[in-house]
């Protein structure tokens, strides 16, 4: 294991060296860094050209400049010593100061997109596999093909035009849905449920009617009570959220039995009560309080489950931990949502909350909740644009994986033992489906980083992709190489992690040491 890691790391460093050389040479030959100076009318043109040539060492041949850059970059490997030097941009600021600020937006963007794409993609993929060849399956497959063929710049522009601007208009107009809209959404939702279900035609029609009526009533109620202007989860929403988490946990862990039922129920109840109790503490926004709440809930859940679990204390502790952590997160989310009216009314935002440009509202100040809400409204659409593409791939991948797993002998064995279908799916099929998906997620990080270049371009977010894009237009090598260093190290790290994860999750794979 250790020798495998060491070997992988050595090879990775060599790969990184070679890739940086290729990148440097290609980028250096892609244009002329003096372009803007050659066409300028400034009287001291020659002097400016000479000055920049000297700063960028244009007198040296490209491989030597690469070696020069590499020398500075190697200094970063020595911890403590102030040797780290990634060079300066054309405008004179050090890459080491430009890069971290640019990274923050991109990291949030890519992480958010990955998390949501994985959760939704696996969920939808597994469900379509379980309902193979239903109209629902066909519809989702076609839709994922469509998303798969949709370039991210198209998605981004469409989101900007249709979601952001329309939603803002909707809020400005008072935040009331028209009856036609309510009925339409209800009909679509009911249709999806009916197509998803298996059974007789009569049962489908009944399901359609129930689902359509329920969703239309909910939506209409929310609209009439002005929820879209002044949203919040409220005790009802919190309760539903906690109960939903508990239900999903029980399903996934296949723990609806004996004492664990009581543990789950107790955890859900405790979570709900806890949510309502900490609301006051969360009024003031600060990171220690938020972390305190979430980790306090986590600890309480694990401890409670452990104590109450009896013979199955390990499982009980996990259930308690998951349910209570979800409750803590819900409490935080609820606090965020309740910030919404104040945020919308802020003079800097002036009633149009969903932003289409930038990563923060200029000049907006406020506590953690306000600033957090501001980040959220700015990064929402680019994250969606990135997510939708990966979502399509993960859906198709987990669907194929689930179908493959369901065909294995051990599934037949599990069924033959007489295990309930729920157990077969949750315990035997789902877990094995997740193994290849985990590795795909890791290797997909490169395409997400590439997608971030486009998403940041469309939404004018000053992130790493934008840094690359603007530097590349100027043939500004140092920031390009800084960007390359970050994404290449990320890609390599995630690939190694993928290999290790595969070996850890799948006992059939052995890491050769």
């Amino acid at each position, binding site marked *: 294991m250790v020798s495998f890691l060491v070997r992988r790391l050595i090879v990775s460093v060599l790969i990184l060296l070679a890739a940086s050389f*290729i990148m440097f040479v290609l980028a250096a030959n892609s244009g002329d860094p003096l372009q803007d100076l050659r066409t300028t009318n400034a009287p001291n043109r020659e002097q400016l050209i000479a000055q920049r040539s000297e700063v960028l060492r244009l007198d040296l041949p490209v491989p030597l400049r690469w070696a020069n850059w590499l020398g500075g970059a190697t200094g970063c490997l020595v911890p403590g010593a102030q040797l780290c030097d990634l060079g300066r941009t054309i405008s004179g600021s050090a890459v080491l100061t430009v890069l971290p600020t640019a990274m923050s937006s991109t990291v949030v963007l890519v992480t958010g997109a990955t998390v949501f794409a994985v959760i939704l993609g696996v969920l939808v993929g597994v469900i379509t596999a379980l309902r193979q060849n239903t109209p629902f399956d066909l519809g989702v497959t076609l839709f994922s093909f469509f998303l798969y063929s949709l370039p991210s710049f198209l998605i981004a*522009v469409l989101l900007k035009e249709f979601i952001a601007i329309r939603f803002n208009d909707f809020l400005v107009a008072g935040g009331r849905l028209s009856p036609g809209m309510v009925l339409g959404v209800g009909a679509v939702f009911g249709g999806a449920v009916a197509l998803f279900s298996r059974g007789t035609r009569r049962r489908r029609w009944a399901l359609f009617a129930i689902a359509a009526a329920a969703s239309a009533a909910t939506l209409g109620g929310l609209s009439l009570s002005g929820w879209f202007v002044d949203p919040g989860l409220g005790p009802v929403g919190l309760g539903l959220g906690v109960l939903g988490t508990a239900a999903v946990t029980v399903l996934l862990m296949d723990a609806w039995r004996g004492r664990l039922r009581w543990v789950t129920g107790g955890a859900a109840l405790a979570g709900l009560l806890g949510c309502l109790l900490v609301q006051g503490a969360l009024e003031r926004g600060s990171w220690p309080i938020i972390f305190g709440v979430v980790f306090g809930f986590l600890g309480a859940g694990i401890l409670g489950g452990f104590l109450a679990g009896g013979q199955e204390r390990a499982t009980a502790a996990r259930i308690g931990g998951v349910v209570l952590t979800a409750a803590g997160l819900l409490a935080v989310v609820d606090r965020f949502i309740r910030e919404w009216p104040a945020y919308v009314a802020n003079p800097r935002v002036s009633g149009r909350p969903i932003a289409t440009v930038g990563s923060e509202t200029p000049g907006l100040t406020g506590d953690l909740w306000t600033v957090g809400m501001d980040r959220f409204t700015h990064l929402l659409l680019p994250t969606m644009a990135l997510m939708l593409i990966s979502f399509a791939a993960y859906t198709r991948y987990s669907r194929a994986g689930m*179908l493959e797993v369901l*065909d294995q002998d051990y599934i037949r064995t599990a069924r033959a033992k007489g295990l309930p279908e729920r157990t077969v799916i949750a315990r035997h099929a789902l877990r094995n489906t997740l193994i290849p998906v985990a590795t795909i997620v890791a290797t997909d990080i490169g395409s997400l980083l590439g997608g971030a270049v486009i998403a940041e371009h469309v939404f004018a977010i000053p992130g790493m992709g934008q840094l690359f894009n603007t530097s590349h237009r100027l043939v500004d090598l140092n920031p390009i190489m800084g960007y390359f260093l970050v994404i290449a190290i990320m890609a390599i790290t995630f690939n190694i992690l993928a290999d290790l994860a595969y070996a850890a999750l799948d006992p059939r*794979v052995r890491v050769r040491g």
Partner: protein
Amino acid sequence: MSDQNRSAESPPPPQEFGDATPARGFGALVLRRFLRNRMAMVSLFLVLLLWLGTVVAIGLGPLPGLWKHDYSTLYPQHAGGRATLSLLPVWLGGEGIGLGEHPFGQSRIGQDYFAMTMRGIQNSVFVMVVIGGAGTVVGTVIGAIAGYYRGWVDAVLMRMTDVFIVIPTLVIGAVVGRTAGGLGIWFLAVLLALISWMPVARLVRAEFLSLREREFVEAARVGGAGNARIIAVHILPNAVGVVIVSGTLLAASAILLETALSYLGYGVQPPEVSLGRLISDNQSAFATRPWLYWWPAVFIVGLALLVNFVGDGLRNAFDPRQHRFRLRRTPGTRGGGRASSRAAAPPATEPENRSER
């Protein structure tokens, strides 16, 4: 596609022995499965039709087209540059079915948008074919050599592949495209092909690694065949499924790569037209002249979708694992097919071929 036809050029003669099923070769089976896949066939037909349509409309190279305008001339503003295409007949309250002067409208400086869009489709298809073709050839050669020789050759070639994989395709594509964009679309397409062969190489290598251990390779070697002959004549025809499928998926992602690069300004340069470039030039006019956005958008998505459907059809034709799962639902039939030796491998090939969008 020519490989597809080649593998079926000698279908075994039908044998009418009572009710015995006629013997079919692998190629014939694959072709039959593909031809029966209605979605893939319709998609293939539509892609060819679309491309032929652009050739008929605006010509290709020395061939003149039928359409009266070309894609670079500036024309006087007609009807405010609005799209004059009308599909509603008069009796339904429309203006009658007709193309009008500028069916897709005019660009902001007055070019005929229909001719521009057609030219953009031609360029996209061209780049797709070159990247799909050249990328598949390079990837197949590298993958075949690495998988066949193993050892240090394999190690060197695969580390080389890793070097290229470390840089996201879109990023290295932007760097290469900035160099090549001004030098013409041929140059751009070939250079992009040289940076996008990696997924093909990996898949072909994996296939070669398993095929080289089979008995027929041993038999060929005993028969006196050299390495080159074994690779080209004995193993490659057996790996043709992987090659074709990964090549098609590469082609589908190539469309998105080219349009994305052109969107960022690194791909096809004016006066040449790219659908991605049309979108980036006109997205600020979305509210006032939406047709300038919609026409290229529809054709990018349509083209990529159709090619993806063809690729999916080919994959199902070569590896019809989907059929086995239906058996699970009908108890009493002959089992559900045994777990394949590939159980530990990722189940589908497609995300390996994703483009960086």
